[in-house]
């Protein structure tokens, strides 16, 4: 398995810097998401990997290849690194057709070989019939597929994607993310994705790297990073609300039953039965009751034990243990009326419609 060995420091002209250090076996198509707020330096990390920026010191090695080594004055230009890059707003060549864009990376290939490869990619990326269009005649989704097809034409060893979904609005983004997920899996090329949206990490990533203020603050499997953020900064990045990872056990009429830590959770089905799902539950959507409420419309009622509670303005944030950790935000008035104490048993109530269920891997 190839090893990506990164240890470098990059300095902006403003004096601020990005310190990047990690070793990562790359292979058996694996997707890593660099998650960080805008300005955290995650895009700079990607640009350094691509060879578009030159770090101040350190090294970047990919298997036996030295891409960058400050001490030995080695800095391979992007065209010698064998990486495919998907740019934030795709950077398609406006003067070239879809077919010409896709074939731009062709080198030392016969006309027939180029045509065959282009045809194969247009097929994979569902772009048949658009060969002669120019980029501005394409929808956002089509542009993304052209850019991705172009990036993988030369079968790069590594795929780098810079905020692939930030250029579009949220419903379109959800659709494109789904498509991107399928394509990346189908391509079987290890991918590094830079994103500020934890939904990208939850749905696309095997591994998640958290970037904050020019530093890598945590990295590991996505489940591990989201379950156990190691610092307050990491917790802020992965979010304070509840994120659950589970498997879809059943699904009927679009409503799925997802099992997490032995509990059944009902939510809109994000994928077929047997697939992994990530569930996002906002604390303000979790209601509390002393006794089970059987005569309401609510689909999710979980027995819960109160762990801690803390005032938050007019509200109280309550940490619950339902087999998994769940965060609830209730008014102080309601909290006093319930008269619950840490250690008490209660019921957590969540409407199926307020759970955001996402497909995973």
């Amino acid at each position, binding site marked *: 398995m190839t090893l990506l060995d990164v240890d470098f420091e990059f300095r902006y002209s403003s004096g601020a810097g990005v310190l990047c250090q990690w070793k990562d076996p790359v292979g058996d198509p694996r997707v890593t998401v660099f998650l960080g707020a805008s300005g955290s330096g995650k895009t700079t990390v990607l640009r350094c990997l*691509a*060879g*578009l920026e030159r770090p101040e010191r350190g090294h970047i090695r990919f298997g036996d290849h030295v891409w960058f080594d400050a001490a030995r004055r080695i800095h391979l*230009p*992007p*065209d010698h690194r064998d*990486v*495919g*890059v998907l*740019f934030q*707003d795709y*950077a398609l*060549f*406006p*003067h070239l057709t879809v077919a010409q864009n896709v074939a*731009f*990376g062709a*080198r030392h290939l016969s006309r027939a070989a180029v045509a065959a490869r282009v045809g194969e990619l247009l097929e994979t990326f569902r772009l048949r019939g658009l060969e002669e269009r120019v980029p501005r005649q394409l929808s956002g989704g089509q542009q993304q597929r052209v850019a991705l097809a*172009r*990036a993988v*034409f*030369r079968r790069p060893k590594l795929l780098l994607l810079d905020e692939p979904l930030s250029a579009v609005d949220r419903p379109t983004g959800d659709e494109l993310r789904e498509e991107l997920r399928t394509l990346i899996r189908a391509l079987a090329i290890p991918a590094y994705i830079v994103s500020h949206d934890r939904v990208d990490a939850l749905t696309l990533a095997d591994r998640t790297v958290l970037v904050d203020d020019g530093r890598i603050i945590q990295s590991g499997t996505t489940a591990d990073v989201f379950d156990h953020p190691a610092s307050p900064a990491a917790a802020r990045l992965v979010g304070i609300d509840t994120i659950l990872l589970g498997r879809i056990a059943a699904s009927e009429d679009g409503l799925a039953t997802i099992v997490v830590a032995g509990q059944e959770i009902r939510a809109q089905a994000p994928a077929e039965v047997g697939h992994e799902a990530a569930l996002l539950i906002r604390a303000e959507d979790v209601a509390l009751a002393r006794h089970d409420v059987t005569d309401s419309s609510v689909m999710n009622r979980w027995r819960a034990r109160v762990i801690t509670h803390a005032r938050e303005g007019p509200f109280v944030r309550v940490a619950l243990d339902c087999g998994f950790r769940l965060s609830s935000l209730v008014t102080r008035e309601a909290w006093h009326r319930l008269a619950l104490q840490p250690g008490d048993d209660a019921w957590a109530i969540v409407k199926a419609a307020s759970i955001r269920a996402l497909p995973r891997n």
Partner: protein
Amino acid sequence: MDWTAIAVTVKLAALTTLVLAVIGLPLAYWLATTRRRWRPVVDAAVAIPLLLPPTVLGFYFLMSTGPETVPGRVYARLVGGTLPFSFTGILIASVLYNLPFAVRPFASGFAAVDRRLIEAARCLGASGSRTFLTVVLPLSWPAVAAGLVLAFAHTVGEFGVVLMVGGNIPGVTRTIALAIYDDVQAFDYGAANEASAALLVFAVTVLAVTYALQRRTLAL
């Protein structure tokens, strides 16, 4: 019409434009894309002829290429003859003097090309020169064409530098602008009028072409 002078002028303008294309395009591309600290210095050096009287440039050219100077001696050894008062002399001076008229439109055209397209081409395995030929040039050709047209036209109308460096030798360094000057000195207003009118029509045509190209750049 002084057809000999017109032939010298066209030859000078065409060769100047050609040389400017060869050295001006890479120079402009470097200026448009480099992030090196001394870029403004080179930028300023290229722009000097815009402010300098042509006679000053001509004067320094004469002083630095005379038969007693190092460049003059090297030139005599390699090529034979002297640079001042020769066609090669006015060609070199004219290239220097026209540098900003070609390089500045080139550079602004290149700078207008989205930097990410250049980066995308590099990441797709294209070398710097291939990127220039397949991405930058196709997206900025109106600006390049405008720069070449301007340089050509400006050389056709050049007076001071050619007079200082070239002397006014019929058939060698005597351009149409110098011929008009001579006609006026000799009170031959008829000939001066004819040549001047031709130059005026030429200038108006060139400006129309240039502006059309600039509109094209904006529309692209």
